[in-house]
Each structure stands twice: as structure tokens, then as C-alpha cells.
């Protein structure tokens, strides 16, 4: 049997061993640097995913503007135009109570121009800012920009103004 304690290594073998150690050390160094770099690069990935999810929800919120209850059909093709006259009438319709299931907040709000009165009623319309169709207690809200259009007798034509649809959903537990 060979005694390993008395094996004589040649100088060449030592050299190869040294080279292997140096190479391993360099690879480990590069590995650490790469891990450091990748961790910095991917640290923003989580927030990017969250942003993309949020944008998808915003797109869904905006699709509400295209539903028959909201859509403005009087002029041309405007996918993001909401009929404000329709909504003020819809607000007082009892037959629409419970129509939008799973939605805790559904509201349209004017961005520009702003008026003194916040919530619209049949008495103050159209000199008001918001029409709330559904309002629950506990929700997480999302907003999408739309155009709020109506017939304006003062100028004898359609008037569209910058607004937003605000939808609230129950937060996921």
C-alpha cells in the first residue's frame, strides 16, 4: 500500500496547484462582483412589476368609459369620452342600485375647470365637480383620465373637459 504522507510532488505539480488556486480566487472575485451587480440591477424589478400591474388596472378602469352607461356617442369616435348628462341622470336611478357589483367606489370627477361645489345634484349641475355613483366604506382606489362631455347650451355645441374616472375595489387581504 502507498503511504500518502511520503508522496513526493514535483515542482510542476506545485505550479499547477498554485495556478488553480489563483484561477479559483479570480473566479470567486468575479462571482462576487457579478452577484453585487445583478442584485443592484434586479432591486427595481419588484417595483416595475407593481407598476405594470397598476397600469393594467388603470386600463381596466378606463374601459368603464366605453360601457353603454358611460360612453359619449354624439360626436365622432372618442374612446375615452364620458357622457356627463347620462351620468347625472343615472345617479338618481334606483334601478341601478347594486348594478356595479364588487365595486366599492365609482365616481367621475372634473379635473379642469374646477367649480366651487364638489358633488353634483340635479340642482347645481353642470357647475359642480363630481358625480358619485357608488360609494362603499373600504376600498383601494384607482384613477384614469377621460374626457367629460356634455351639450353646452351657452355655446350651442358639445363641450368636453378634462376629468377622471375613479374606481375603488376592496383591498385583497
Amino acid at each position, binding site marked *: 500500500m502507498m503511504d500518502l504522507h511520503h508522496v513526493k510532488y514535483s515542482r510542476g505539480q506545485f505550479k499547477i496547484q498554485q495556478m488553480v488556486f489563483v484561477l479559483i480566487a479570480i473566479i470567486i472575485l468575479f462571482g462576487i462582483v457579478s452577484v453585487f451587480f445583478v442584485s443592484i440591477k434586479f432591486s427595481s424589478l419588484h417595483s416595475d412589476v407593481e407598476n405594470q400591474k397598476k397600469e393594467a388596472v*388603470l386600463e381596466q378602469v378606463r374601459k368603464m368609459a366605453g360601457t353603454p352607461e358611460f360612453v359619449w356617442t354624439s360626436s365622432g369616435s372618442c374612446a375615452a369620452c364620458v357622457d356627463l348628462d347620462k351620468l347625472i341622470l343615472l345617479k338618481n336611478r334606483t334601478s341601478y342600485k347594486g348594478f356595479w357589483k364588487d365595486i366599492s367606489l365609482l365616481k367621475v370627477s372634473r379635473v379642469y*375647470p374646477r367649480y366651487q361645489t364638489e358633488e353634483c345634484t340635479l340642482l347645481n349641475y353642470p357647475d359642480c365637480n363630481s358625480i358619485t355613483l357608488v360609494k362603499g366604506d373600504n376600498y383601494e382606489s384607482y384613477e*384614469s*383620465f377621460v374626457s367629460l362631455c356634455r351639450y*353646452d347650451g351657452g355655446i350651442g355645441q358639445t363641450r368636453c373637459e378634462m*376629468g377622471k374616472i375613479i374606481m375603488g375595489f376592496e383591498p385583497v387581504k
Partner: protein
Amino acid sequence: MKKKKGQEEIMGFVLIVVLIVVVFVIFLGIKLRNPEPAQKQSEIIYQFLESSMEQTTECVLNQNSRNVVMDDLIKECYSNNNVCISGETSCETVEDTMNDILNNTWKVGAEYPYKGYEIKADYFDNSSSQGKGEKVFLISSGNCNRSFDGNSYWIPQFPGSIIVSAKLCA
């Protein structure tokens, strides 16, 4: 003084490590010194642009004519810059209305999440909107040097097009 072979090899190894560290530090320094503004395409900004282009403005160009919609007024601003009945030019009305909309939409400044915004419209001769366009208007507020969310909206204007682009800076 005669150096041992082992010492020379350690020196060589240290030299390699120092070299790698120096290269890494230089790379990191360049990367940190000139941070390219990170741009993200934003759906909400596209929605903002699309909706603001439908805004009915207070500009009436002729007696008995209609109030002009924002995208038509931008075209008017580029092509003729006629004066509205109110006395303002179409370009002035575009800028005023856009400023009012922006002020009502986003609060910007050092104390807010968004530090600034920039919205501009340029006319491009070709459909690809490459190269430098002809300025139609530019509105900016706050500081817009770092990362930003942005998007653009296309308005056809024969023979080219007007691109309205917006940046919201973090």
C-alpha cells in the same frame, strides 16, 4: 536584496486584484457620474394626453364658429397662429389652457413626489418622427433632470404630423 519566488507570485496576484478593483471603481464612477435619465413609458400619461386633446378651449376663431378643441387648436397654432375672438392668439390659448390643466392635475416641486414636468409639441415632416422637429410649444415646470415617466400623442397634420410628448419627472 534577493526576493523569494513566492513573494513575487503574491505580488503578481495582488497586482491582478488591484487592477480588477481599479477597473471596477472606474466603471462605477462613470456610471454614477453620468446617470442617464431613466425613461418609463406611462399609460397614465398617455391617457392624460389623449383626454387633454379633447378639451374644448375658449378660443373661437370667427363669429358664429365653434369653440375649438385642443388638438385642432394645436394644429391651428402650428399652421396659421390666427387670433381668437378673445384677442389671444391660438398658440397663447393652447399654452394657457394646457398650463391650467397641468396645474390642476399634478402638483410638482421639491416637496411633492413629482419634481417637475415638461410637455411639448413638435412638428415632424416625416411619419417616423425622427430627427429634430419644428417647435410648436413647450411648457415646463420644476426640475426635470433625473428619471421620468413619459409618453407621446400623435396628431396628423398633412404632410407630416405633430407629436405631443409629456414627461413627469421623479
